[in-house]
């Protein structure tokens, strides 16, 4: 028994699953997406007034934007921007590599008066990855 405790070969060390530095942000993002989905569903069930729906939705989108900004900051810190991020950000929709006009959302086509990082309509990033404003 003592041998079992003391004799440890290097090969016995468990290989830790790669921990993405973005994990907590991904989790947070997934939670926000889930909140958005719930909100959408409850709105469809007519449980929410239009006003509640809109306010809450904008709030959630702002939170999402904050998480993404944090993600970008972390990427810069880790020297991963531009380039591939170490972990596939779980809930991020694949960025569409389409040349875009600055103020038009590549995903839904909504237009905005000023340049935005994220679409106010659909929440997707407006800048293609690697293109730093």
């Amino acid at each position: 028994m003592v041998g079992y405790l003391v004799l440890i070969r290097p090969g016995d060390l468990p290989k830790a699953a790669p921990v993405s530095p973005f994990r907590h942000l991904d989790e947070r993002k997934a939670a926000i997406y889930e909140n958005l989905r719930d909100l959408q569903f409850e709105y469809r069930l007519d449980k929410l007034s239009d006003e509640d729906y809109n306010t809450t939705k904008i709030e959630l989108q702002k939170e999402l934007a904050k998480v993404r900004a944090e993600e970008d900051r972390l990427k810069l810190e880790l020297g991963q921007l531009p380039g591939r991020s170490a972990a596939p950000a779980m809930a991020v929709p694949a960025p569409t590599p389409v040349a875009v006009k600055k103020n038009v959302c590549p995903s839904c086509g909504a237009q905005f008066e000023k340049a935005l990082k994220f679409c106010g309509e659909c929440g997707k990033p407006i800048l293609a990855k690697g293109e730093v404003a």
Partner: protein
Amino acid sequence: MENVGALALLLAFCISLYAIVSSVVGRLKGKPFLTLSGERAVLAVWALVSTAAGILVYALLTGDYRMAYVASHTNREMPGFYKFAAWWGGQEGSLLFWSWLLSSYAAVAVLTSRKTHRNLLPWVVAILSTIQLFFLILNTFIASPFQVLAVDRVVTSVADGMGLNPLLQYWAMVIHPPFLYLGYVGFAVPFAFAMASLIEKAPGESWIHTTRRWSIVTWLFQGMGIGLGSAWAYHVLGWGGYWMWDPVENASLLPWLAATAFLHSVMMQEKKGMMKVWNMVLISSTFFLCIFGTFLTRSGIVSSVHAFAESPIGKYFVAFLALSIASTVWLILDRLNYLRSESDLESVVSRESSFLFNNLILLASCFAVLWGTLFPVITEKLSNEKISLDAVWFNRLMVPIGLALLFLTGVGPLFAWRRTSIDSLRKNFQWPGIGTLVTAATLFAFGMRYPYSIISLSLCFFVTATIVLEFFRGANAISEKTKSGFIPAVIELTHRNTRRYGGYLVHMGMVLLFIGWSGHPFNQTAVGEVAKGAVMQVGSYKLKVLDLTEGEMSNYSWETAKLEVTKNGEFLEIVEPTRRFYKAAQQATAVVALRSRLNEDLYINYAARSGDKATLQAYVFPLVEWIWIGILVVIGGTLVCLVPSKVARAYTRTEVVGVAKANAPVEV
């Protein structure tokens, strides 16, 4: 044999100590070999404690009456099933059972999270091993199950043991303690993960994700343990009650209440990153209440129907509790900064605030029960007079609290997360609200005059209405979209978010429990001394005594009354309430005659015999059956919660969808 068992425990004690040291040093100095060694130590402790437990169980089954524990908790006549159950039937054995469960839980925790939580695991191992160490101290030095009987220092044996308390020889009683212990012990793991993430200042909510299932399963075990206990009390004890606010019952309820609060408030942390300190406090309180419950049960500081002998282990528990509470409080205070909330409460009229109220009320009930339970101890210390608070006191306090909780159960789903405007509120409340008032008015019109029962039943309607509406609306929306039938849509809806809809099922189970409790004021009682041929009346039932007989069995003697039951002149059945007297334990038990129907139970207890007359206690308990059905629904709902949600598994593919009606730019 017993020496091997004692030695195994002693070794386990040493290795637990080693596990603590090696994990902490390994983590602090960054030596993966040491931390791995700590993890292995946890498995080794499990093997050793299992060995000791195996030896004890073997001695119990084979009847090794040299051992004090075997001699005082089994006898030759007992069926093997109960001999096995004697493992947790007494003080020393049940403490060993605690140790064994904890070591098993720790081993499972190590094996399941050694890959995913390299940083947290050393601390988890250290914390669990510390708890393990405490129990092993009790097992090894204070209350060893391996003591042998001796006369003048010569080991001796007795011809036959004293047997297990015959009241406990009932199937529900055999599995009631293990379930409670599974609950008591299980909360150690979420607690350990919570503390580990505090120590490590781990970012995010990973301890919650890791221990989410764990908490639910443990909560379920604890609830099942409580349910089995009250089912046993009702079916075996013969007084017709299922809960009497006995200190030990309260001890099992306390962690369950705290854990219920935790399961609710943890959702706010998952969803919005709020209430982090609060959740730490709740999970710690739950764990400490578990230890406190064990302490209360095992030390005999308060008198209880679960009469265990006065024992010296109390002071060790107090010391352990004091030390661990102090270090937890220090840790939380020291890490307040890390636990900063990410968002605030937006509006008082929101799902969050209903959760908050639910938490406050649950905690208030926890305090009330704790206060009531400790009152005799406090009064004894202050005035040398032990004043126990009875069920009346508890009911006066807990009934309104329970009703408030029931109300919130109904209100919750009607509120939206973050905010609910007056408009939506009116729309959502309209029909359930009107229905509730109509129910109350109808009950009053039909002559019901007990305010609490009226409120309770109306609120039951209210909660049911909101839950049914929730399922109905959701399933409708899905069936419209997918063109599927209603039932598949309900299943799809539940599968999409099992925790929410499983949770609603649990709420539905609670509603059924409240329906059962609401029948309480309408109980009818009749006690009578009857001879052969006499007729006794209880409620609308007539009981005619056909015969009074008695007899002898190998380990007990019995007396019984043969009764013909008629209701409104119509013959129903012949029942035979019996009283048994167990010779070895010199104790009487009742075999109650019970006729259960959904509207009411007829409950007849054979209390005593004098000459040719028998004393019968007959009761009519309206709606009691719903309590047991409610417990089953709660269990079913919890199991649904444990099924992985479809959406959660598929969320990599989900995107933000939706059509905003007003366009608002987002600035970063």
